[in-house]
């Protein structure tokens, strides 16, 4: 019943570039951990994982994905950080009818206009980030916003999503400055944001851009003067590289934090022993998506795409990452998100004790109803 007698997962990530910290080899380790939980076999067949470094290049990803699907007996793709890669692999997955488990990419279109029947978007998306951070901050009184937006599709999407949330919650958006991507100096944009008089400066960017913007804001005394910084896509490694004393008080939406409950702590400890780092949400999400996929195979006894997909949709996602998560027909995995805040250095008890969870955002609220999805095949 298992094609080629083996269940093979092709995990593709950025192993050497910008995203190698938040996804990369750690994601491969996480997937491996899911396989180990099955003892290496599922439905009587061995489970194998192959990995590749797509180097953030869509053509390498497309090439690998095609090759794996055509000649490598790969049954599902996993991780897929960077939207261009995820989209390229979606194209292959659609043609070859393979399951694509997206964990790393944040792009909302993956479950909207660019959705495919076999594509599952697991960890987070820009909308969830917007809802978490946007509504929480407006609720606390941060009702006028100014955005620093990276001048490319992702930045614009993020700004659009957050603006909608802010306005829906009764706040106003005073304006935005588009900065080049990547930009090394933010002082000029910070000054513009300062001059706008907005209560909140929203950073619709990611990675080094976010870090640089926050460092500049700190230097120019933005927070001291009463404005608030909202990082819309911040990962733990980013917080570490900003430094806790600068980042303290920063609020952000996360899909996962290692120190949430006993389960996450136990799993993260295991992960830490293998990698020397605590897991990020992308890495934990990769674990969850692979685990759920294997569970469905175990339950159905086959690796046939349609059967497995149906089973995955039918079963709730239940593991240390997601509690009672559900898979929608547009491919969205709906699960709770969390609003977290960076701890003060004085509150922190160790190198990795960086965040505290201030609010749980129910999955429905974070991802919105299925009716809002523009996915044609939903």
């Amino acid at each position, binding site marked *: 019943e298992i094609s080629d007698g083996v269940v093979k997962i092709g995990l593709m990530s950025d192993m*050497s*570039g*910008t*995203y*190698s*910290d*938040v996804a990369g080899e750690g994601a491969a380790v996480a997937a491996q951990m899911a396989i180990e939980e099955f003892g290496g076999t599922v439905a009587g067949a061995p489970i194998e994982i192959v990995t590749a470094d797509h180097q953030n290049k869509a053509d390498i990803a497309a090439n690998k994905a095609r090759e794996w699907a055509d000649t490598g007996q790969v049954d599902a793709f996993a991780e897929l950080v960077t939207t261009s890669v995820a989209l390229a692999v979606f194209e292959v997955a659609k043609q070859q009818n393979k399951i694509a488990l997206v964990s790393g990419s944040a792009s909302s279109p993956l479950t909207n206009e660019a959705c495919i029947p076999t594509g599952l978007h697991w960890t987070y998306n820009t909308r969830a980030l917007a809802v978490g951070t946007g509504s929480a901050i407006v609720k606390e009184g941060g009702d006028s916003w100014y955005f620093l937006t990276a*001048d490319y599709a992702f930045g614009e999407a993020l700004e659009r999503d957050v603006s909608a949330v802010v306005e829906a919650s009764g706040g106003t958006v005073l304006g935005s*400055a*588009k*900065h*080049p*991507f*990547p*930009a*090394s*100096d933010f*002082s*000029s*944009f910070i*000054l*513009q944001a300062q*001059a706008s008089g907005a209560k909140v400066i929203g950073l619709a960017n990611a*990675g*080094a851009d976010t*870090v*640089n913007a926050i*460092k*500049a804001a700190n*230097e*120019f*005394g933005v927070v001291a*003067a009463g404005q608030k910084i909202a990082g819309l896509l911040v*990962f733990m*490694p*980013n917080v*570490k*590289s*900003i*430094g*806790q*004393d*600068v980042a303290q008080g920063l609020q952000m939406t996360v899909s996962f934090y290692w120190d949430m409950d006993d389960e996450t702590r136990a799993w993260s400890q295991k992960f830490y022993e293998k990698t020397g780092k605590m897991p990020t949400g992308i890495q934990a999400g990769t674990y969850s998506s692979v685990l759920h996929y294997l569970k469905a195979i175990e339950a159905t006894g086959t690796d046939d795409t349609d059967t497995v997909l149906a089973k995955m949709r039918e079963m709730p996602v239940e593991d240390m990452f997601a509690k009672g998560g559900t898979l929608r027909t547009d491919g969205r995995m709906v699960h709770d998100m969390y609003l977290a805040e960076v701890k003060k250095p004085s509150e922190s008890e160790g190198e990795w004790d960086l965040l505290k969870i201030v609010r749980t955002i129910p999955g429905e609220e974070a991802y919105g109803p299925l009716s809002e999805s523009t996915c044609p095949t939903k």
Partner: protein
Amino acid sequence: MTDLLGFPPQVLFGQLLLGLINGAFYAVLSLGLAVIFGLLNIVNFAHGALYMLGAFATAGLTTYFGIGYWGALILAPLIVGAIGMLIERFLLRRLSGVDHLYGLLLTFGLALVIEGSFVKLFGSSGLPYAPPPQLMGGVNLGFMFLPWYRGWVVLAAVVMCLVTWYIFEKTKIGAYLRAGTENPKLLQAFGVNVPLLTTLAYGYGVALAAFAGVLAAPITQVSPLMGSNLIIVVFAVVVIGGMGSIMGAIVTGLSMGVIEGLTKVFWPEASATVIFAVMAIVLVLRPAGLFGNAT
């Protein structure tokens, strides 16, 4: 309070000043490139990676040896300069006598190796670094809040530029360097130790890059890829100034910072390309660059 082109004058002054500060980085970086190009006739593609090394050395000195910013300001350029001298001595020197383009290619490869290794060693997110306590805070200039640290950056960079300019244009060493650029063999036949001169010049250029790295560490993310995109802009600055021209590098560096700064106000989307556009215009009008001599 009248508006200038729709912006209150404070904003404009502030942006001008910030542009100048950024220009200071361009100036120091392009100066290093100009020095290296001057003597070795090599476009040092590894300049961005060495700038990054300077910033990492700064962060590393604090993390691992407890040496603070001021110590790093001296030590990091020395360390990285020494690395540069090793690179020159064992790699670049082997290229003497072949087309200078090979130097560009070699340093391009080196940049890949250095940056790639650092991603592996330190992760892509990099290390945290804060400004020295003496320069925390800032002063309100009326039209803007100027962090002390930014003020220091301009000062340090300008002093460094002037010192370098003096060495190269006004001393005997400078004459050797210029002559060595053209015909190193003959200069050596006159009794000048050209190989040593070359090594030192490369070391100096690299140390300038590292110096810029130290200045940058407290204000930008200290990460392995921090120099890889910046370097292209700096190349454009050098071309505008006229390659190998020390004065050109300094003046163009500062003024490109200002132009870029103003673009960020009036047309932020274009701020990434404005320097390249200026370059195109300059090349049409003066093919050798603003300060280059047409030959």
